[in-house]
């Protein structure tokens, strides 16, 4: 299962140190607010369950994320460590073709067939990798769409 870990600290770093931090920790994202001296690092993890993810996050924070910050700012204060399952957190609102297919119980190819049909939600963005929709709108479409009977059209039988 895919998880995200995020650690938040209070520390003061300059731009070069932030660039180096982002590179050295291989974090998915490094956020820094210069007014509040708040740093937030986010990284992807793989773990079978929540307990394993929590331990992975703890190890990541203490051995990879925090030490480089403390090298530049020894007084750096860790204020938060969070772990969340992918799909429920920051990008949980978004669905690409694969996620939309899972939500609708169809194949990604079928999603590409029906995406232009009336009633299908408009994409949030159309990126090089494909369209992105709001997951809740796709879910609503899946619950409320009228399904055709499907199958081969019946042959018309002339009246006697």
């Amino acid at each position, binding site marked *: 299962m895919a998880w995200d870990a995020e650690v938040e600290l209070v520390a003061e770093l300059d731009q070069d140190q*932030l660039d180096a931090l*982002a590179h050295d920790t291989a974090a*998915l*994202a490094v956020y*820094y607010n210069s007014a509040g001296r708040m740093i937030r690092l986010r990284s992807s993890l793989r773990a079978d369950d929540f307990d394993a993810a929590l331990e992975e996050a703890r190890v990541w924070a203490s051995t990879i994320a925090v030490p480089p910050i403390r090298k530049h700012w020894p007084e750096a204060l860790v204020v938060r460590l969070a772990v969340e399952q992918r799909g429920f957190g920051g990008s949980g609102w978004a669905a690409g073709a694969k996620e939309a297919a899972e939500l609708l119980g169809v194949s990604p190819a079928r999603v590409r067939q029906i995406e232009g049909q009336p009633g299908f939600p408009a994409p*949030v963005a*159309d990126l*090089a990798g494909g369209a992105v929709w709001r997951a809740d709108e796709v879910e609503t479409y899946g619950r409320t769409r009228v399904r055709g009977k499907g199958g081969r059209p019946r042959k018309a039988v002339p009246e006697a």
Partner: protein
Amino acid sequence: MDHTIGESMATIAEEAERQGFQVRQTRSAMWHFRKGNDNWHFSPRNVLDVLYVLSVLIEAGLDWKAFNAD
């Protein structure tokens, strides 16, 4: 960096810059976005990472409707 991810990030970066974010690509797979006192360094490796980047920037004020504007 995967070609698709690079293209997607370039699209996002271009629009973000148009909407007032300062953007620079610091390394081949790393992007720095800045708005006021807020700084983000992103290193997306797959499509879900790109979606995360987009969601963060939207929360920071990026108008996503502009991506679909004709």
